[in-house]
């Protein structure tokens, strides 16, 4: 009897949760995640704190790219370029406008990369598949060279170095800098993810999927495919810009070599690895981006392999993983987990209880 009431009570809560506005649900989930991060960073050492922050900015870049590829069906090999724009905007603001607060810098970095996204997205909205991949590939290779063209303003191949404010004085006794930084990074990341989740699940996401699946039908029902594609590109570029700005904030530097083609391709690998078009997939992808690198180094060190093996192992592993996933497991990690979850649920409810 009591068991039954508890179950109805839980069902009622679940029901109310499902019916509450989407934005509210996503904000609540983000708040819960933020509390989890605060807890996690409080029990781990400063080194791990920084690594958690690194996962955070990779996550927002991968999520933005996952939205572009999975929901709107476009491909970009050039997202490293938007991270480049975000990082350099951040660096220039910190150096030349010392009074500007961090949140304003982040917003301006997002605005700058969105502006670049408008330019690139509008120019490439008519391109598809291989042509779009080629054009964005050129962007990824070409843009970092701009820093070499203007060494006085952008620091040439050494990039820009600056120092960012750490923990505010009121908290500086209790919260060490790395912990504070990872909180800042994750707060920004989670807010951005709320936007991405809302876009992906909301009306805009539905329209993007319609254009992706059948452009002619979508156009006939009054949607404007070119404009919708550009919008998706801009949102995704903004995510890349935020990721770059957060990276610059965390490291205190912005160098052209860290935004090369390898970065753009790794981001793509992370999206495919996690599973196209899913925010959870983006989390697995971001974790892989950070930990494959770490484990690759550790493994090479443990086996006594030379430095150049250690430096190249992650990119080779990513490449092999990309091929293996497309050939064997096209829905990625999240797709596999979802199928596993469905199988478990079906078994618990019993066969026939829930048609698959």
């Amino acid at each position, binding site marked *: 009897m009591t068991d039954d009431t508890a179950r109805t009570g839980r069902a009622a809560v679940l029901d109310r949760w499902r019916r509450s506005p989407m934005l509210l649900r996503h904000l609540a989930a983000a708040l819960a995640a933020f509390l989890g991060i605060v807890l996690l960073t409080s029990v781990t050492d400063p080194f791990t704190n920084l690594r958690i922050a690194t996962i955070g900015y990779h996550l927002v870049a991968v999520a933005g790219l996952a939205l572009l*590829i999975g929901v709107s*069906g476009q*491909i970009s*090999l050039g997202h490293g370029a938007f991270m480049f724009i975000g990082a350099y905007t951040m660096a220039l603001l910190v150096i030349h406008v010392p009074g500007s607060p961090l949140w304003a810098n982040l917003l301006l970095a997002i605005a700058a990369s969105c502006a670049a996204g408008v330019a690139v997205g509008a*120019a*490439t909205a*008519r*391109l*598809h*598949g*291989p*042509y779009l*991949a*080629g*054009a964005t*590939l*050129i*962007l990824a*290779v*070409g*843009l970092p*060279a*701009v820093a*070499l*063209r203007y060494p006085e303003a952008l620091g040439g191949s050494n990039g820009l170095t600056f120092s960012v404010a750490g923990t505010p004085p009121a908290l500086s006794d209790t919260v060490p800098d790395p912990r504070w930084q990872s909180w800042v990074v994750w707060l920004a990341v989670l807010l951005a993810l709320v936007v991405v989740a809302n876009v992906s699940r909301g009306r805009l996401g539905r329209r993007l999927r319609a254009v992706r699946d059948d452009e*002619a039908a979508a156009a006939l029902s009054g949607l404007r495919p070119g404009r919708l594609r550009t919008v998706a590109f801009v949102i995704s570029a903004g995510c890349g810009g935020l990721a770059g700005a957060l990276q610059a904030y965390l490291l205190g530097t912005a160098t052209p070599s860290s935004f*090369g*083609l*390898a970065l753009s*391709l*790794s981001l*793509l*690998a992370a999206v*495919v690895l996690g599973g196209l078009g899913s925010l959870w997939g983006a989390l697995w992808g971001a974790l892989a981006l950070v930990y494959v690198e770490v484990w690759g180094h550790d493994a090479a060190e443990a086996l006594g392999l*030379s430095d*150049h*093996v250690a*430096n*190249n*192992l*992650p*990119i*080779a*592993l*990513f*490449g*092999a*993983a*990309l*091929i293996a996933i*497309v*050939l064997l497991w*096209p829905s990625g990690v999240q797709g596999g987990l979802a199928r596993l979850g469905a199988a478990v649920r079906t078994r618990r409810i019993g066969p026939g209880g829930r048609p698959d």
Partner: protein
Amino acid sequence: MEQLAELVLNGVSSGAVYAALALSLMIIYQATRVVNFAQPGLALIAAYTAFSVTRATGSYWLGFVLALVVGGALGVLAERLLIRPVQRRSELSAIIVTLGLLMLLQGVAGMVWSNEPHSFPYPLDFRGRFSATDAFAVAAVGVTALGLLLLFRYTPLGLRMRAAAFRPEVARMVGVRVGLMLTVGWGIASVIGALAGMLAVPPFIFPNVLDGVFVYGITAAVIGGLDNPFGAVLGGFTLGIGLSLVSGYLGPELVTLAALVIVVVVLSLRPDGLFTRPRARQV
């Protein structure tokens, strides 16, 4: 005027390399509707093979020949093992697989030969304006283009390859081994890619050495039209000269962005490339 002539001549010799890469991309695209983003990876391994062979034996030309053989063999393997399973699936799958192969090959090259640049020999004398090496590059690409023309126009093998690319079902019915033809196409294209790599690598070889050149190869293929061999060659030389002028008058760092602007402008005006007759597009 002096500078202009110099820049144009430089542009012609680098244009030869872009033309070769564009040809290689074009053959593969025509046969399997896949843009082979792994091309710089295949050519890289070929060039590193030449590097090791030349260092061991002292003979540049032995290394050169082996590089073409290795390049072709890798192309055949890539088509058989990786491309064929995903080719019918979706555009995106094929792009991702070739990118994965690119990352894998570059990573492996870095593991075996390290990321440090090694010096890589020129085939012939490279000093002075339009040196013997430049002439060799232009001649090699010219001969390749002519050979391809003869192959596709006048030989039974070329006819079968064209049939397999354009109407696979019909070709199969009249007895053409379509799968084999596609593999041959990848092999030939990868040999040409390896040739382009051998011409583009000197003076130094390192895992990312071909990224930039490949970008211009794609640009040349796109402005020439991915379906059109003459377009690919013309696109390569036009781009070589154009970028050489940008580099000379505006700065070498802006060359890649100039290529991007060219691609976007060309594709907005002529989605099938500059040198292709416009036709109705299938929806």
